[in-house]
């Protein structure tokens, strides 16, 4: 797909182009939003808000970079703002200062499907969930995460380590239960 042309058409205000841009990225971006929120409705709210921002600021897109990455970045920022603004997440989105964090060298094989893995991540407390998403999935460094969330780098590391440990525990448990289920029902 010629993204540059698509963006130019969107900037001209062509409804078909706008629809095409939305449909091309909406599913992937809802996956992104889904990982940061606790419900599908919230994820759709973020998606909606994010796409409104995208169309409103499309003129700022420089054709040098990749359109998908630009859109993804906007979605992530929108999700973070949503979490900060939404009172339901504010209590859970706390980042207690802690220099000690569990060190886990476990690297279990992830056999789950993407949706199930995302569900597990969404079971994490909002703070853990956010930091885990930003570091493990989006690839932000802890320094960047600290700046984005207004926390220390150490706090981000600590949160991430706890989230990782928790997730690995759940993954192992899920893996055992799956094996048992497989054994019982051959």
């Amino acid at each position, binding site marked *: 797909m010629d993204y540059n042309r698509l963006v130019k058409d969107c900037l001209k205000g062509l409804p078909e182009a706008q629809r095409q841009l939305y449909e091309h990225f*909406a599913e*992937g971006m809802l996956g992104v939003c889904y*990982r940061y929120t606790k419900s599908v409705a919230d994820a759709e709210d973020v998606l909606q808000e994010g796409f409104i921002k995208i*169309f409103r600021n499309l003129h700022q897109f420089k054709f040098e970079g990749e359109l998908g990455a630009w859109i993804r970045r906007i979605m992530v920022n929108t999700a973070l703002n949503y979490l900060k603004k939404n009172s339901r997440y504010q209590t859970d989105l706390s980042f207690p200062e802690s220099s000690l964090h569990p060190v886990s060298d476990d690297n279990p094989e992830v056999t*789950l499907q993407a949706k199930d893995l995302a569900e597990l991540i969404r079971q994490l407390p909002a703070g853990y969930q956010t930091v885990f998403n930003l570091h493990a999935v989006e690839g932000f460094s802890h320094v960047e995460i600290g700046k984005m969330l207004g926390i220390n780098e150490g706090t981000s590391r600590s949160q991430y380590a706890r989230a990782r440990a928790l997730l690995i525990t759940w993954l192992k448990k899920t893996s055992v239960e799956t094996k048992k289920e497989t054994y019982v029902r051959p």
Partner: protein
Amino acid sequence: MSDHEFEKQVHQKLQELKLRPSDTVWMEVEKNIRQDQHRRPFLWWWMAALFICVTAGGYILYRYTAQTPITTNTQTTVASLSNIKSAETSSNSTNQSSQSSTLQPVTDKTAAASQNNNQHSIAPNGEQKQPTVEGPDATAETTNPHTVAENKQPAVASADNSALTKTTIKRNKKPVQQPLANNIGGHTNPHEPVIVSKLPYEKQRSNKKKRMVEAMAITTPVYQEKVPVIEVAQPNENAWNSTMPIRVNMLDSAIATNKAVIMPFKTMAPEMMPSGPVVALSGSSIIRKKASLWHWGVVADAGYSRITESKLFQLKGLLGNEKFIAEDLSARSSASPSTSPSNGTNSFSGTNNQLVSWQAYAAPPKKASPIQADVAFSVGLFVQRTLSPRLKLSLGLEYSSISVHTQVGQKVNSPNNPIVVNMGTSQAALVSEYYKYPGTDTAQTISSAAYYQGMTTSSQKYTYRFHYLEIPLMASWQINKGRGLPPFQLEAGVSMARLLSVDALHYEGLKGVYYKDNDLFNKTQFNFVTGLSVGLLQQSKHPLWVGPNLRYALNGLVDKEVSTGQYIWSAGVSVKMLLGKL
């Protein structure tokens, strides 16, 4: 498996995650895009229309002021006196007319009563008139008297207080299902079933709004049952809002103001009460930080200033190079130049600055040099109160420096040989230090010979400087939401300025001299201030407002006893920065 294998797997897996959003998401996005697309041209049209209106208004004002004959020094004494007389006569007639038009007290009791009833919304039988509600609910409310009686407000004035009071109390003690959004739009009756039709924007899937509505629906009955009720008997039974015992919830006692008494059951959702305290409904207190409505900041203006002549609201020279000449304070004087040029000495013989007939100079009154624009600036602080999302009121304290310049001639300092200058209609003063008319270099220049021979060699620039301490009171109205475009706001207000110091000259046309007399300047100036500004850096901690502004003095620069009117005004660019909350 490496340390990052887990992260890689997670990353890879989650990149594949795709979920299909519901159709409503695109509908809302599309709706928003279309709104933006429609709003932009409309805004530009609106701005263009505003610009045209302002330009046309300015042009008309300019044309009007330009056609007005400029006061010259050829006015005769007779004319001046006759003008004064006519002015006096007109002022007398004005007084008479104003006396005759004094409003008489209203004697028609019926009219007064009906007016009173209208104001208080009380029907003749003591029942409260329900507020008019548009839409299908309105008919039901207004045509069903039973409903009206049932839904009696606790704070309604009534003729038969005691009976109705008891009835009302009994009815109110029943646990009442508080209707949703009962107070939206000023509807204050807690018992009146209000059917709130969903507005389009409410149908949008916004979780915030959902939560609000759910919270209200769930918690309101609990609120009514659990909260103890206090009956407050009002001592003055005839007064409005005080004839009935008023039920005040304990919850409302936290905001026990007059407003709370009038609307005892006002239960706005927390989201709808930005400045009010939020009350916990189920034991756990929701602490919401009260947003401060007060801000403070700094303001600075810079531009140019001019002095108009003899006319209020002349904006000649706002955009062009038109110039005003300095006012001749002797223009209305009863003294007139003599036709005899022989006597070159002053013949001032009056006492207490009383004018005597002037015989010294045969030359006709000279036209003063033009007064040209110069730099004006002001700096100061202000406090701002947000009255509504778009309306703000601010009060400031500023130092203002206003200057203009003109051309004067050689400076003369002759304590032993002062000259007499006329001012106003019947005043004169001796001055020993003065500046001659520009282009003249000898003492003879004030004689007719020199005037006509045109011995012009000397001229210098003299800058008039006025320093004021100013207190502006401004109202600003944000004209757009500032979503697509940055926010624009119109400002208007008045300011009171106190003259701190001045370095300026007055002009005497009979002799063609400029002299200093600071006592002639009005010490207090009242200004009209207006402007249009655009908001920048609105998301930052220190939002900025930048735009053109105009300040125009409403009272004369010089004492009206000696001046027909000089008005100082300035135009420039104003920068206002909010620095913090109070």
